[in-house]
C-alpha cells in the first residue's frame, strides 16, 4: 500500500507516529477518450478565450467569482497566511460511542499503521479503545485542509474516518414531500410489511455483493484484447527467458571451453525447454488480427 500521509496521533501527552493509507478504492473501469481517426488520446489544452491562445501554468492565477464575471484574485501567499498550522497530527479531542455518529457524516476511510518506534503506543491505544468500546473524535490537518475525523478500530487496525462538519450535511427539512408521522396507516398492511422485512433479514456478508456491470465490462475488454478488435497493437511478440538462458549457456560454453551442460556443481535443469512455447503464439495472433482490423478500416 501507498503511504498518503505521515504524522502522528496525539492522545493526551502521548504522540504515536503513524503512516496513513487509503482504505477504500474505486474499482470503476475508466476509459480514455481517443481521436476516432488515429486513436491518439485527446489532450485538454487550457485556453484563454479573450486572448485566443493556450496559456501555461505560470500564467494562471486563482480567482473567486463573487458575482458573475467579477473576481477577487487570491494568491498563494494569501492562502499561506490563513492556512491552519500544519501540525501533522491527528489530535484526539473526545471519545464517544460509535452509535453517536450517524453514517451520513462519514466521508472517507484511512488505515493507520505505526511507524518507527510507535508500535507499542499504537497497540496500547488500540487495546484501550477495544476494551472501552469507544471511538475518538479528532481534528486533523491534511494538505492544508483541516477536517474532523473519527478514529476507530477495524479488525486489528486503527482506522480514521474523515467526517463532514455539521454545516456540510444538509438539513432533512429541505427534502421536499416527506410525509409526516401523523399519516394514517392500515394495521394489517404495516404487519405485512414488517413480516416481509423479517423474512428478508440476514447478516451482512460483503462478499455477496459484486459489481455485475464491472465484471461484464472487464470480460468484454479481455475478449477484445484476446484478439478481435484491439485499437492499437500490443508490443511485438516477445523473446522468451528460456531462449535467453540457453543463449547464455552456449556463450558460456564457448568462453570457458567447457561442455555446455556441465558448468555447475549444483546441477541446472532449470533451463530445460518445454515442448511447446505457447507464449509467442497469442501475441502473434493479436498482431495479425490487428492488421486485419486495420485493413478492414482501410477498405471501409
Amino acid at each position: 500500500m501507498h503511504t498518503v500521509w505521515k504524522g502522528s496521533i496525539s492522545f493526551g501527552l502521548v504522540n504515536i507516529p503513524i503512516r496513513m493509507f487509503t482504505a477504500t478504492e474505486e474499482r470503476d473501469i475508466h476509459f480514455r477518450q481517443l481521436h476516432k481517426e488515429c486513436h491518439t488520446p485527446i489532450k485538454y489544452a487550457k485556453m484563454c478565450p479573450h486572448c485566443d491562445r493556450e496559456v501555461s501554468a505560470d500564467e494562471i492565477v486563482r480567482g473567486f467569482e463573487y458575482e458573475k464575471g467579477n473576481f477577487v484574485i487570491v494568491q498563494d501567499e494569501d492562502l499561506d497566511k490563513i492556512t491552519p498550522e500544519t501540525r501533522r497530527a491527528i489530535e484526539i479531542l473526545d471519545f464517544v460511542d460509535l452509535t453517536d455518529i450517524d453514517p451520513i457524516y462519514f466521508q472517507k476511510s484511512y488505515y493507520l499503521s505505526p511507524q518507527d518506534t510507535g508500535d507499542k503506543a499504537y497497540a496500547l491505544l488500540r487495546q484501550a479503545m477495544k476494551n472501552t468500546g469507544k471511538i475518538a473524535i479528532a481534528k486533523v490537518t491534511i494538505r492544508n485542509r483541516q477536517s474532523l475525523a473519527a478514529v476507530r478500530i477495524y479488525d486489528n487496525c486503527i482506522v480514521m474516518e474523515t467526517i463532514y462538519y455539521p454545516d456540510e450535511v444538509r438539513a432533512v427539512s429541505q427534502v421536499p414531500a416527506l410525509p409526516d408521522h401523523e399519516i394514517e396507516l392500515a394495521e394489517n398492511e404495516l404487519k405485512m410489511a414488517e413480516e416481509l422485512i423479517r423474512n428478508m433479514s440476514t447478516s451482512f456478508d460483503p462478499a455477496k455483493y459484486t459489481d455485475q456491470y464491472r465484471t461484464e465490462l472487464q470480460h468484454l475488454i479481455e475478449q477484445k484484447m484476446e484478439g478481435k478488435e484491439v485499437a492499437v497493437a500490443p508490443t511485438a511478440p516477445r523473446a522468451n527467458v528460456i531462449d535467453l538462458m540457453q543463449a547464455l549457456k552456449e556463450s558460456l560454453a564457448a568462453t570457458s571451453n567447457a561442455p555446455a551442460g556441465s558448468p555447475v556443481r549444483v546441477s541446472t535443469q532449470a533451463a530445460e525447454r518445454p515442448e511447446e512455447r505457447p507464449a509467442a503464439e497469442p501475441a502473434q495472433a493479436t498482431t495479425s488480427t490487428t492488421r486485419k482490423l486495420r485493413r478492414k478500416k482501410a477498405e471501409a
Partner: protein
Amino acid sequence: MQPIDPMEPIASEVVPHGPEWIAQVKWDGVRVLTYADGLSVRLFNRRQNERTWHYPEITQLGDYCKTNSVILDGEVIALGEDGKPSFHEVMRRDGLRRMEKVSQMQKIVPVTYMIFDLLYLNGEWVIQRSLQERMELLQRMIVPNEQIQLVSSHNDGSALFTVVQQHQLEGIVLKNLTSRYVLGGKDASWRKVKDYRDLIAVVGGVTLRDGIVNSLLLGLYDREGRLHYIGHAGTGKLTQQDWRGLTQTIVPLRQQAMPFYRLPSRHKDAVWLSPQLTVKVQFAEWTASGTLRQPSIQSFVDLPAAECVLE
C-alpha cells in the same frame, strides 16, 4: 508470516575465485519473496511492500512448487523487445495501482520469476543451512515452467562475467556456497559485480523543448539533506508519449526555487520542480566532477525522494 528484510550482495570490483564461490547472472528486475504458510501465498518485495495481487503467475504455487509451506527468494523479470531483461518493462507490472488491470497486463508484459534461494521449508527455517544445501533443497522443490525458473549457478565467475558483458546484462552475483542466509541486508558472502551501473535519483528539474519535457535534472541527497546535482538524462526507455505524459505530471510540482544545493551546470531554461519524482537511471560511470556519464532513464519508481541518497 511477517515479511523479512532479505539478504543483499555487497558491491565488488573483482570476481572472487575459489571452490567455495559460485556465480549467478544478476537478473535485472524486482526482488520478490514468496511466503506460503500452507493456507495462503503472499508476495512481498525487498521493502516489505505487498505484491500478492501483482503476480498471479507466482501465487499459483501449486503449479511449480511441491510443497505449500515455503519461503522463496527471487527476482521477477520481464524482457524488453531486445530480448534482454528490462526494468522498464517489469515496472509496467510492478507499478500497477489498479488491480483489475493485472489480468490484461499479464498478456502484454509476461514476467518470469527467477528463483535463487529458499529460506523456509515445511514449517522450518533453513537460513542457517549452507547455500549449497539450500540450493539442493530448492532444486528438489521447484519444477520450472515458462514463467518460473531457477537461477543457474556456475563455477567460473570470470567467464560468466564475460558472457554477461557480451549479452549486455546487468552483472553477476558471486555467492559463497558455505554461507548461511543472512537476514537484514548486505552481507559479504554475496558479492555483485556489475557490468553497467544504476541508481535511483530524484528529479529536481526538467528542460523543455517545444513545450514538451526533453530531459530530467537529477539529484541525490547527502547526509545533511542537501540535494546534489548528479547530471541530466534525456535518453532511455521513455517514449514520446511518456514524455508528453510527464509534461502533464510535473505541472503541480513546478516551483520558483531551485531545489539543488549548488546551481547545476545545465540550468538555462530549466524548470525547477519540488523534488518528489524518483527515477531509475542506468549509467556508465561517475565522472571526476561527481556526475553520471551516459545516464539513461529506465523507469519512474515509487521510492520516497528522501531515500535517494549518495552512497
